[in-house]
């Protein structure tokens, strides 16, 4: 065993220098030079250059004039320092109660339409940036009411924001909530801000 200790110690030292420092730092160097936007978190900025979020990370939306993301189990909701799913099993009482409560509220705002599954379920990360196109269309009547915009124009905006699966079958169709809401703010400013400005 002792004769093996020298190569064990020396190789671990060399591996640490090569794989633990040189490798990640080299990738960081290439990344920061070639792909700075992605390497720093795909940040989205407003016209003043202020960071309003990451294109990849969901953020909390509760105001009725915005499209809402999915329920989130990350911290108190969309806590990007504490990603997490609910980890609740399919028969968990709290899960069933939560989905029922959420469904009652959603049904009140758009009676008669089928509530999409992703509208009442928490994502795996708690930071899902997307909702299904069906979920966006389900929320369209509320947004159209709150913004005083014809429903057709809101659904047209949704359709323009839908990302289709790669080659038609890799991944699922989806709408990025932050991008959709930013497009919404750009095209149809909220009624309150129209009055104010």
């Amino acid at each position, binding site marked *: 065993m002792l004769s*093996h*200790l*020298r*190569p*064990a110690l*020396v*190789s671990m030292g*060399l*591996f640490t220098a*090569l*794989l633990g*420092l040189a*490798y990640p730092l080299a*990738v*960081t160097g290439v*990344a920061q030079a*070639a792909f700075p936007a*992605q390497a*720093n978190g*795909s*940040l989205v900025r407003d016209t003043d250059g202020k*960071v*309003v*979020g990451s294109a*990849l990370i*969901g953020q*909390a939306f509760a105001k009725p004039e*915005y499209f809402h993301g999915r329920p989130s189990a*990350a911290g108190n909701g*969309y806590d*990007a*320092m*504490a*990603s997490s*799913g*609910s980890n*609740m*099993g*399919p*028969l*968990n009482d709290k899960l069933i109660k939560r*989905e*029922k409560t959420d*469904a009652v509220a959603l049904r009140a705002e758009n009676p008669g339409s089928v*509530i999409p*599954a992703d509208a009442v*379920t928490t994502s*795996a*990360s708690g*930071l*899902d940036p*997307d*909702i*299904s196109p*069906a979920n966006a269309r389900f929320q369209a009547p509320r947004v159209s009411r709150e913004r005083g915009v014809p429903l057709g124009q809101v659904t047209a905006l949704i359709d323009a924001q839908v990302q289709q*699966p*790669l080659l038609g079958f*890799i*991944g699922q169709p*989806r709408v990025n909530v932050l991008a959709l809401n930013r497009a919404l703010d750009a095209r149809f400013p909220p009624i309150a801000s129209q009055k104010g400005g």
Partner: protein
Amino acid sequence: MTWQGWAEIALTLSLAVAIGWPLGVFLSRVWNGEKTFLAPVIRPVEGLFYKACGVDPGKSQSWHAYALALLALNLVGFVFVYAVLRLQGVLPLNPQGFPGLSGHLAFNTAISFITNTNWQSYAGESTMSTLSQMLVLTVQNFVSAATGATVAAALARAFVANRGEGVGNFWADLIRTTLYLLLPLSFVVAVVLVALGLPQTLAASVTAHTLEGADQKISLYAVASQEAIKMLGINGGGIFNANSAHPFENPTPLTNLITAVSINTLGWAAFFAFGRTVLAKKDVRALVIAAFVLLFAGAAGVYATETQSPPAQVAAKVDASVNMEGKEVRFGAPATAAWVAMTTGASNGSVNGMHSSLMPLGGGIAMFLMQLGEILPGGIGSGVAIMVVMALLSVFVAGLMVGRTPEYLGKKVEAREIQFSILAVVIIPLSMLGFSGLAAVLPEALKGLMHSGPHGLSEILYAYVSGTANNGSAFAGLTANAPWWNVTLGIAMALGRFLPIVAVLAIAGSLVTKPKLAPTAGTLPTDGGLFIGLLIGVILILGGLQFFPAMALGPIAEHFQALGAVAALR
């Protein structure tokens, strides 16, 4: 279920095999010390390693020496990781200001990363400094993967030798696998992943001012460099708590495809490398087919369970065509199902959806694939090694039926090989079921559970199955960062890693001295459909049957509860 879903699953699973083939040819050349196209760049570095370590790469070691070298390296790795994690608070590159880890958590994490398990009792973004992620966790991702590969290299040499002595040089196998295969491939994949959206920065976080006027602090790391080796090395330990479900680890369907393929491709490559080294390509093709059939069945099973009606969605009267709790919208059921099978069939353990929230039988399939011993295709090298053990047991069973001394790949399989084969596979259920049984009655263990009833038992069983199989995924409702769980899971991971490795090396040591025989009319062909069927049977009986009672009380009982609940609601 849709044709698009089936196409996505089929593409993801088979692409890993297709890419694994050429990589396996390359890996075999690396093991043999043949010249490769990377030699001009890497030869000098390789030579530097040998010189500094004082080893002669051409000196073949006995299986004892090979095993001792392997254990010495892992011991040094354990001490180093433990020390850095304990001292994290006073070490540099800690922009997050995190303190050192507790003794039991550092113990668990150190064993977890040296054994290629990457079970995580902690949440990365609230525990690990940038230095810890890079200096110990990323390094062990490479070294533990290469350690597994050395076992297959040694076993391959034992089969190819004719009355030989040594099984190769551990240090040469370790250093070559790391320098020629893992490092260059990880570098390329890491850069591609950055281009597709993964962060790669030394900054700790950025604060955004959201559209609704709140502040959102967003955790950042050098994600891509660790993500690449986390998948390619079949490690699975995520930077973030949500692992590959986190949009920074896996932002799009394309990154999902690339990383999912990366989970399995080097496992398959080790199969093909073994076949090329032993000059038994057809026999190894049979092993690959058997493993692929089981893996595909697992993915198909999960796709089926996740498109059944989830009780909560039925109760809430919402769309119940797919179980979306614990899934990301961009992945949905098919990409999650493919991942569940690939991560549990290999000993990866990363997740792109939460396994605890899968339908009962979906979670059961994840457990079952791990119980088979991590051979579909398992870890790099460790997978094919245990698969060969299964093949030895299969020819032994067939030999018993006809009363002939069995042979495999030109070597007689006798008492010593079978004894060590049984040792290699018996530790798995012993540790999985033994620890689960203890935990199920100890209050100290039970207080970590999130659920009671069958799902609670599944949380316990999943933890020890995952730990022993060196997988690392979890039913994460379990709060594992407590002394009982950290210590017992640490022991389970070490048992499940090192006993099978030593047993396989002992088999190699026994086989290497035997003469290489030419096949005769009485030799059982091990490259055809008959053998594939026999092998699948042995795998299912060995892996599946002994777990059936425990599974009946966990996922299977919960499945019938779920059916009952849905029927009552409708």
